[in-house]
């Protein structure tokens, strides 16, 4: 059923810390590795070892250069996967009911047996969270590792999404964002977590934490003034060359 649930009992989602993400892409690999051999069709690659490789990924890490008004430019690594929106436009456009949002935990899933591969949900998603698998001909998306988080065959510490489990920097957090007392909700409140493209009214469940302000150069060290360059004008041979060239 492609009508969205009025409310969901829980709002499971991710909180991604842009301050601590080091851009190692381990979450991309862990995601592909888990999801290519578990829930649904495998995540195929086309021409993986050839000249024009391409493949299906449910999680991709972009990198952005941020130049603040004062100070040095910095790099922000930006992992992006399905945000499991409360008002998910990808769900309502589906003609077959293959796309749905679960009322119990808010996870947005695709029933691949019903997907006709029309691609309309991928168009409707502003975030590029859905990718059509070129081999299977069905729409793939982040399942929030629904086959891990409730999986009693796994040890308790592994019952979280593969991307969260693998992140060496601790930049990814998983939990119930509908519960204001949960760890992830408190983290969002403490760090000023934000939504992506909030104006589009999708109400994403996943939140992003902004990079913390960096140290300023002029506060770095009391010895800094002594490290100023001592020679403003060249001396010796270079000085002579400089003066000779000036005279020409």
């Amino acid at each position: 059923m492609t009508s969205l649930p009025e409310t969901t009992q829980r709002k499971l989602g991710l909180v991604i810390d842009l301050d601590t993400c080091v851009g190692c892409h381990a979450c991309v690999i862990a995601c592909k590795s888990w999801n290519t051999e578990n829930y649904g069709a495998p995540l195929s690659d086309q021409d993986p070892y050839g000249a024009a490789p391409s493949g299906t990924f449910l999680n991709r890490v972009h990198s952005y250069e941020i130049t603040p008004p004062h100070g040095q430019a910095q790099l922000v690594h930006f992992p992006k996967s399905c945000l499991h929106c409360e008002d998910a436009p990808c769900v309502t456009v589906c003609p077959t009911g293959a796309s749905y949002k679960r009322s119990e935990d808010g996870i947005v899933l695709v029933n691949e047996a019903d997907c006709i591969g029309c691609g309309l949900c991928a168009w409707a998603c502003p975030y590029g969270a859905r990718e059509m698998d070129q081999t299977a001909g069905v729409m793939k998306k982040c399942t929030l590792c629904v086959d891990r988080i409730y999986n009693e065959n796994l040890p308790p510490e592994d019952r979280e999404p593969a991307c969260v489990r693998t992140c060496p920097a601790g930049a990814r957090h998983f939990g119930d964002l509908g519960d204001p007392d949960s760890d992830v909700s408190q983290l969002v409140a403490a760090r000023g977590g934000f939504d992506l493209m909030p104006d589009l009214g999708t109400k994403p469940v996943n939140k992003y934490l902004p990079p913390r302000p960096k140290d300023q150069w002029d506060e770095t060290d009391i010895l800094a003034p002594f490290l100023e360059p001592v020679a403003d004008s060249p001396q010796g041979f270079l000085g002579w060359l400089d003066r000779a060239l000036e005279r020409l």
Partner: protein
Amino acid sequence: MHPAPSVIIFTTLSGLGFGLLVFLGLGFPPVTGWVAFVFFLIAYALSVGGLLASTFHLGHPERALKAFRQWRTSWLSREAIAAVAALLVMGLYALFAVFFGTRIAALGWIGAALSLATVITTAMIYTQIKAVPRWHQALTPLHLTTASLAGGALLAGQITLAQIFLFLGGIIQIAHWLRGDGRFAQAGQSIASATGLSEAGRIRAFEAPHTGTNYLLREMVHVVGRKHAQRLRIIALGLGFVLPLTLILIPGASHGLGGLAVLSHILGMLASRWLFFAQAEHVVGLYYGARG
């Protein structure tokens, strides 16, 4: 957006076919017998041919029947239902008109309404997508509907109606382009809102997630074909609306000129549909440092 040939052909041909069915249902012209047979053959060839072409872009066309289920929320599902209902009702209407020489007017009106509904639901599939600001505007359904009615009236040989809809269609086509050009900026999404990093400073996409391309880039960040956009607009407007209008304004226009007008209109509409997709910018392009 990627201008997939199957979707361009589908929207162009089925738009024409259902446009023709609207007029046949309303009794413009009030045909029966063999003449009706030829008219309905053309209408069904275009509309059904277009619908078949649209299934070529599906990953699993064999599951297409499942698409009739979600009419409560999905415009694509509503389109499928409206199209089949229109074809069935008009089929019954055609059966009586061709073989029994009687036109059941009420059936024709219902069929015409369903045919018009099909064109509107097709248009709404594009209009509903907020992530493509050029499509997400009130002129989109108006543009696709008038274009369909202009082609339908031309095919039905309704000179006066064709003049009206070609004129209106041409004006709305221009308006859709001009308004569409500013829609992305109006929608207000930028790399800053996409990443939420506006407060940190000036943002530049430094590195894409992968060295290769991917489905999102191929499907939604398509830029090929924008190079000749202005020339294609002139071709679309000239062949799609201006030339056919001029041809049918010639007093005592013959069938030959009418046929030429139809052909010109179809070529123009193909160019228009190419631009409809190729110039549509999806906000996901912002994540890749593209404007769309």
